[in-house]
């Protein structure tokens, strides 16, 4: 149980000393996860909104698929990306395996369905009260999608934050496609996995606390931005 007592002190020491290696790991974690979240948001927000707004055969099947894919196993996604990017794979020539870009792709694939599914539900709820109004204003369906996305953005930040939370906490996929190479693809979660396997439980827990602190800080910042927007608009 010593590890539990030592973890907070080690975490505090890590945060105070800000060793370059730790900073690089934190920086890469944030860069990869933010890039994956940005890409997933660019795909998932319009995709979810379009499924909510457009009426077409198979729409309910796509909605069900999006919901089901929210629980995609990370190792399966990691394996799929690995096979695509490996030398023998169809995208092997790009030479992306064991690079941060591969980790971004894996995280993006993992969280796009999550963001799209949450967006679809949010936009579908808003669409029920907006649709008739937008119809009488002669609004085309593409403009409905962008209008609903704009008016729902406060709620949609929760969807994007959920995506970021899943991305930054993810280990299974990034360790397969990134390889946990020191100074190249080592991020917070893969470092925690490594230190745990080496028996450095206190250090692993300390890194976990640092990761938690980062996630909480980002959510607090987003919450403050939301409150400011609410005060300004309604």
């Amino acid at each position, binding site marked *: 149980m010593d590890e539990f007592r030592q973890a907070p002190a080690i975490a505090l020491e890590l945060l105070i000393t800000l060793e370059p290696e730790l900073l690089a790991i934190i920086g890469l974690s944030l860069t990869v996860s933010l890039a994956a979240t940005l890409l997933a948001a660019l795909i998932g927000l319009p995709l979810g909104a379009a499924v909510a707004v457009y009426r077409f055969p198979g729409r309910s099947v796509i909605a069900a698929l999006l919901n089901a894919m929210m629980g995609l196993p990370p190792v399966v996604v990691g394996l799929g990306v690995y096979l695509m990017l490996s030398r023998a794979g169809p995208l092997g020539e790009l030479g992306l395996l064991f690079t941060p870009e591969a980790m971004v792709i894996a995280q993006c694939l993992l969280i796009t369905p999550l963001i799209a599914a949450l967006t679809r539900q949010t936009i579908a709820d808003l669409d029920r009260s*907006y649709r008739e109004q937008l119809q*009488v*204003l002669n609004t085309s369906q593409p403009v409905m999608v962008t209008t609903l996305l704009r008016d729902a953005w406060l709620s949609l930040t929760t969807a994007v934050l959920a995506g970021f939370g899943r991305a930054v906490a993810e280990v299974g996929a990034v360790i397969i496609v990134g390889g946990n190479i020191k100074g190249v693809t080592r991020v917070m979660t893969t470092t925690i996995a490594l230190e745990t396997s080496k028996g450095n439980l206190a250090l692993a827990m300390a890194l976990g606390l640092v990761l938690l602190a980062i996630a909480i800080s980002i959510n607090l910042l987003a919450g403050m931005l939301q409150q400011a927007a609410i005060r300004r608009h*309604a």
Partner: protein
Amino acid sequence: MPDPAPPSPPQLLPLRVEAVGFARNGRTLLKAVDFRLEAGRISVLLGPNGAGKSLLLRLLTGLLHPDSGRIEWNGHAPEKLRPALGMVLQKPVMLRRSVRANVEFALARTGLPARARRSSAEAALDQGGLLALADQPAMQLSGGETQRLAIVRAWAQQPRVLLLDEPCANLDPHSTAGVEALIRHIHAGKTRVILSTHDLGQARRLADEVLFMADGRLREHAAADIFFDRPASKQARDFLDGRLVL
């Protein structure tokens, strides 16, 4: 270079409604509704709650389609006629942006170039007495202001006919007076007004002609003075006398 003139909207009147029926979940909500409206008058759909007034307005604008019968605006199907056919819903939805931006959104749907929208929106807001509130978030307006903005927003699209569904429901007398003044102002221009209400006083103040509805049927269609002086149907007499229309 001047903005290209927008294409002239089609002439919409007369409106012909022939044997229109509508049912949902085994319930007949409208039955054999027949009437014809000409240009130049304010038409009021009058009747108790549940008479089918809002449903009929939705059919007239093409938001819904009748199960039987036919609706033609000078030979055109209603769904092809937006934005020449404008509508203000009973509970209008304000977009989460400023008062001005709400009107600019409506103007954008008519194809008006972006550079002309701001001045057009401000001109419309001025006529609705809302210019001083142009920069306020639309969702912070009072009930009366919201209803006036909804009317201005629809009117900014320069419809030939504007349909208003219970435009003063739940408004205080002061707000009602403001909305009714705006409706008269719109009618004095080129826009034909058709509105629904269950408020007898409002029908007396605004109507040139009355279409009285009860229980999903059109019971009477007459000039306002004739309707109020000599109602022909029992349901209309009950309604005018303040009795429950069953």
